[in-house]
Each structure stands twice: as C-alpha cells, then as structure tokens.
C-alpha cells in the first residue's frame, strides 16, 4: 500500500489537491487536510449525520465514504453554503428561529436541509421531518429546526 494518495477535487467551488492516507475517511480529509473543521464527527458510523456533506450534489455521511471515492468529485461542506457576504436562506432561517442550540448537529443539518429544499422546494412538515430523519439533534426536539426549514422554503419562494 502506498504511504499516501493524491486527491484532487472541487471543494466549495475551488479546486484543491491534497495528500491523504490511502484508507482515510472523507471526513478526516475534510477536517485535517482540507482544514474545514465545520463538518463534525458525532458517531463515526453514519447514524447521526453531523458529518453530512454534498458529494456531487448528493448528501453523504462523510464518515462512511473512503476519501479515495472523492477523487475528481464536487464537494460542498457547511463552509460552502453561504453566498459571498450573506448567509444562505437555510442558514439565515436557522439563526432567526434558534434552530441551532449547541450547534454540533447544525452543519450536517444545514447540508441535509439545503439538499431537501433543492429536491423539494415546498415541503410540508412531514416531508421536512422525513428529509432530516438521518440527522440527529439532542437539543431542540426538532421543533425550531422544522420551523426554520419551512420558513427558508417560504423565503426562497418569495424570492428573498
């Protein structure tokens, strides 16, 4: 096995090349080599969703993805959600609704919510809950998170 492999991928819109352990998890490469600590490790087994990122437009738990699979891929992490100078609609709604309490599930929750609204721009309460069922939160009871996602959908619809 080689000491390390070279990975080239698009990270939050910018091409990056890093060296990584051949068996490294995508999560470790994101946090260590790419120095994007916003993505969190809550369980290391794909249950909690704190490490969720968008890989080629699809939500994945980066703790379950071998980094080698991200070769040439388009990666979006929580750091890539905001527009220049402005929070994304989902981020703004999370802030407004107190949907982030301890904030540790928040990066993954925002990524999943962003993906949900991309696929389903006008979700109902039950669709939001189903869309976020892979992201565990222990602080909020999900009430404010669901409120925030519904409000972000409305804001996007209203063209804000």
């Amino acid at each position, binding site marked *: 096995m080689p000491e390390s492999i070279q990975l080239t991928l698009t990270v939050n819109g910018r091409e990056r090349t890093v060296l990584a352990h051949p068996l490294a998890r995508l999560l470790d490469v994101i946090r260590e080599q790419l120095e994007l600590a916003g993505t969190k490790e809550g369980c290391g087994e794909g249950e909690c969703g704190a490490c969720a990122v968008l890989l080629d437009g699809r939500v994945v738990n980066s703790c379950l993805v071998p980094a080698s699979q991200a070769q040439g891929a388009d990666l979006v992490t929580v750091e890539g959600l905001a527009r220049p100078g402005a*929070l994304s609609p989902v981020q703004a709604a999370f802030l407004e609704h*107190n949907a982030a309490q301890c904030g*540790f599930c928040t990066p993954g929750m925002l990524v999943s919510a962003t993906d949900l609204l991309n696929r389903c721009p006008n979700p109902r309460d039950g669709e939001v809950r189903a869309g976020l069922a892979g992201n565990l939160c222990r602080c909020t009871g999900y009430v404010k998170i669901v409120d925030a996602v519904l409000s972000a959908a409305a804001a996007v619809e209203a063209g804000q």
Partner: protein
Amino acid sequence: MIGASSIRKEGRAKVLGTACYTADKVVPDALHGVTVRSQVPRGTLTGIVYGPGIPWEEMVIVTAADIPGTNRVASVVDDQPFLVGIGEEITHAEQPVLLLAHPDRNLVEKARRAVRLEVAERPAVLDLQSALDLTQVIYGRDNLLKEIHISKGDPGPVWAQAASVIEATYRTGAQEHMYLEPNAMVASVTRDGEALQVTVWGSLQCPYYVHSALGQLFGQPGENVRVVAMEMGGGFGGKEDYPSLNAGHAALLAYKSGRPVKLVYDREEDLACTTKRHPSRTRIRCGFDAQGLLLALEVDFVLDGGAYATLSPVVLSRGAIHSAGVYRCPHVRIHARAVATNTPPPGAFRGFGAPQSLFALERHMDVCAGKLGLDPVELRRRNFLVLGDTTATGQVIREEPDLGGIMDRALAEIGYSGKRRAFAETNRSEDPVKRGVGFSVFLHGCGFTGSGETHMASVAGVEGLEDGTVSVLAAATEMGQGKNTVFAQIVAGALELPEEMVGVAEADTRFVPNSGPTVASRSTMVVGRILEDAAAGFRLALIQQGFLATPYTASDFSAAVRAARARLGSIKCYGQYRPDPDVVWDDRTYQGDAYPGFSWACYAAEVAVDTVTYEVEVVDFVAVQEVGRVVNPVMAAGQIEGGVAQGIGWGLWEEVVTRQGRMVNNQMTNYIIPTAVDLPPIRTFFLELGGPGGPGGAKGLGELPMDGPAPALINALQGALGDLRLDEIPMTPDRLLNRCEEATHA
C-alpha cells in the same frame, strides 16, 4: 432586554460552521491520547503486559505511578482514582488504568489494544438489588454511598385509619445524555522549575470543577492551573462531573510527554465509559381518606450510584425532596439511599434525580385514581399544594402555584376530556391501534438544593472594554442553552444599552471569576441576578466618578467607558450571591427551604399504540409551565422542546443494555434517541405568573422539561390499554408486549 427573543450571540458562527469545538482546535505537534481500561468489573490489578508488535519506546505511557499530586478526582467525596495502580482495586469494567499517547492516531489505537492487564478477579455487584442484599460488600460497610431521611408528621398511626392504602414499586432505567459532541480535551503542561503551568481546553460545563481537580492531581496552587471551556456540543449534565477525569488524563499525558495532547473519545468509548442517568427503584405507599385526600405518604427511593460516589449524594438529595411532588400531605416519611455497584458511575443528568422520583409519584397518582374510582384530574385537584402549605421538608409555599390553573390549561390544549370519552369508544373497536391521553403535574426546585448557593458564594462581573463596549465575566458555559444571549440581555437591560454593546467573555479561569457550575437550572436565575447587581454597580461607579451623567445614550456610555479606561486602566465591577435571609435550610435534619423557588408544570400527551407491533406513537404533546418571567421566549421554548424530546426518549425508547456491568449497545445504531420523524410538534406554553426569583422574576427552566414526559406518556398508555403493570421505563415495545401478555394470563 428581558422578554425579547434576541438572536443567539454565537449563532452566526454556528450556522457558518466556524464555531470552534475542542476537537476542532488546531494544536501543532499534538499527540493523540487513548485510555486503557480495566475490562473486568472487580478485582485487584496485578500486572500490565505490553504486547508484541508495538514500538513501545515511541509511546508516551502514563500509569498511576506517574501522578505528581493526589490520585483522586476532586468531587463531593474524593473516592475515585484517576488511574488504578498495580496492587490497587478495580471497581468497574471501564476503569482507566493506563494512558498512551503518540503522534500517529492509528498506531496509538493499535497499542491500546495490545496492552493486557493481569487482574485477580473477584465477584462483582452489578445491580441495585444485589447491592442492597449485600451479596458482596464493595463500599464502606453497607454498600451505601449516601442515605437521607426526610420526615414530616408521623405516618405510623395513619395507615390503620386511612380509607385506602395503595402501594406500588416503580423502576427507571439508565439514560445516556447523547450530547452530539463526544467528550474531548486538549492539554498542555509546561514547567518553570518546580512549578507547573497546567492548561486544559475542553468540552466541559464547569471550568472551576476541572480547575480544582487539576490542582489536586498535580499538587499545584490554583494560579498554576488554567481551564478554558471551548464551544460545547451539548452537555445535559454529562459534562458536569466527568470532565474532571478526562481533563486530568489529557494533562497527565501532556505532563509526561512535554507536548500538547488531544484526548478525543469516539462515540463507542463515550457511551461505554461516561456517566448516565442513575437507574432507580421507588416504592410508594399512599393513604387516603374517604374523599380522596392524601393523609400519609411513604417513599423508599433507591438509586444505583455505580462504583464511586461522584455526584450521587446530591442527585439523591434532589430526587428525595422531589419525591413528594406537588401534593399537600400532613404525614410524610422519605427514605433515600444511593447504593454502590461495580458499574461505571452515573452522574449528573438534566433533572438530577427528580425525573426518577417524579415518574414514580405521577404514575402512582394515576394508579391510585383508578383504585379510588376517581378521575386522575379530580384526585390531583383535591390534593394540590396551595399558598401557605408546607412541603415534606417543611418549606412554606410563598407564592400561589395555581396548579389547578396550569393543569386545566394543559388539559384544554390537548383536548383531554373529549378525547378520553372518544377513545373509550373507539378503543373498543377491532382497530389494532388503541389511543390514550395522559398527563403529569410536577415541580422543579430552581438552583442548588439547600444551602448550596450560600456555600458556593458565586461571583460574576462586567468589564468595560477599550472599544467602549461591555463584557460579561462569568464561568458559566454555553452548551446550547443560550447563556451567552440571556446574560447579554440581562446586562444590557440593567445598563440600558442596546444588546450589541454587550459581549460575553470566554469561560477561561484566567479571566473570569467563579460564578459556580453551569448546572441545576441556576445560570439565569442565580448568576443572572448577580450580573444585574454587578451591572448596577458598574453604572453607578461610572456616574459617581463623573464619567457618566444620566440620562445617557449608548454613545455617551461608550465614551464614558473609554474615558474611565484611559484614566484607570482596567474597569471591572463584580457582584456576589446574596443569600435570601428568608431561605433557611438545615442539612442535618433535611428541614427547611430546600430551594429558593420552584417552577411548576403540567405536561399532557396523546399516544397511539399499535397492538400488533407494540410500537407507541406520540401523537401530540403539550407542555404548560410557570417559570416566572421568561427572559428569551424563543430560546426558553427551545429548552422545553429539547427537554421534552429527551424525556420522551427516556420514557419509551432509550435503554442502556449491560452485560457484566458494561454497556453493550454503546453505539448510536442500537441506543435509540428520537429522530425528527419520531416526535410530534411539541407545543409549549409559558404562563409567567411567578413573583420574585432571578432577573425580572425569572426562575429556572432547563431541567423542568425532563420531569414530566415519562409519567404523562405512561399514564396515556394506561388510557389506551387499560389496567396493565405499567411501572417501569423505558416502556419499549418488548416490555409493553410482556406487560400485555402478563395481563392476559392473569
């Protein structure tokens, strides 16, 4: 301002992903630490074998022999070692024995697995009943970590006179906090001759607890120890007492190696080794007269405290005091014991003993109502505490709690009467889904129990900064509950400034005073009150020394702060906790004012049970509470909603499965916490009737929501399924099926 739903101070960093949690801290040249654990529940450590295939000479190895100070974790009782030494006793299966560190995270993990411990094993005590039966004596002479008696009147003669005497036993299981961020510490230890400088950055609720633990571990004075609370990914009590232990471990590795060390638990280690909610068993006996008035109450309350005392004595105390609930009763006997077992010690968890004893009582009230032929609403209404009544400890209720009003509001919101009638009808049909509504009425004592606050004598302050803004100085930590925002609101209100002019200093023991631990629903009520005083003093000092004249604008105030700093250098003003002379408590007799105030609530739940799968769906949940003035309504609701979710999990799904005293379902895959699809919209209402208390009349609210959900849900299950032995939580589908079969066969 108090009463505004201000936006979370650190919220922007949290949604941008830039908030820095302990594991995110960039530490050049850091070693990765791991912990080698005992693996057997009881025995004597006789040897340590370093297995083959590991470059041991590269490893930093710390054993008990390396400890420079005292090998005991500073706590209520200093009985727990940081590490077990050769020849010493192992008392639970996850006990730290050896610490390893290396720059290569993978190699140090491999090394951990290569260590073999030689242990002369002895029979272990693994559950509460075996501890009471003294199958082995493992702690003191009687396996008791703490025993408490509370007495009012004399129930003895009442039992014979009572129209009905109803007795039952209730059990609750352990619960995992499951903060999303596993425990993590970063440590650095530098030497200056004999003196050490020990610094720890960590995920911790109580910087000064860790500070005193490190001082004792290294035998260093307080000024040589610094503890910094990083952004924290949830706590719930799980980072109240435990961090003294893992902070010590990280610091020992840094001390031995001379390099900074990161000690980050993975989820499996965190679940297996760190604290849980105490398992409990409560036997209750109630005597009623012919009208259903409560004449006598006897409670035997037992907690499984695990291998060391940790916080069990104080958890037991709160549980015992809350065991009499919200009812007037002239004759009460409460006997409470925390027993030792050879299991990892439980510790603080939101509610702190009260959820256990209140589950038993609020469940028992429904059982009693059934036996007395009364509606549970009516039985409670006849017995509620009112203004002027005394509690089991003889505390006079000085504010009208209006429990009837709180209960009526919750029942109206959930549609209790109509649903009870409707479900009685529909549950008779062939439909396998049976429905029920249930509720609980309860209280939670705000702040420390008894004279805790007086002993603590907390200090907090405000400082004027160079840019003319103000900073809050307190050791209270932010774990998501909103302390940064609420403190800024309180201080901004007291100084009549816009909130953006008030910041909150990092909880770093080098810069902030000891405002006490971030626990016991005390931050807003107790520390907030001290901050109000400090802010008032700060303002007065600026005025008296001629820097500020009233009335003033925000920019006048800024100019005054800048001018004062220019003249005086640093400008700070501190406040200190002032004991209320009307609050009197006797630790020896357990008589007096157990708490400076109580929050009151009624929670109501609607459930649907599938009698094919025995799955329980929570259809609706209503939480009505009186917590005094609500400082930040949106954040307060967030606290209640999260607490209710945790309470629902504890009541229905969350089960810690153990084998030989070790948790075996120590993964998120098989320890089930609620997801977004498992929960209904939780409907929260604040009545804000309360009088005095904290800033603007605020009382504690963080723990209250943990107390009510479990009994409300189980009472609702009784409504759905009729009379079953519903005396234990979590009421998982397996357990519920067993109870239904038991009822069928009876």
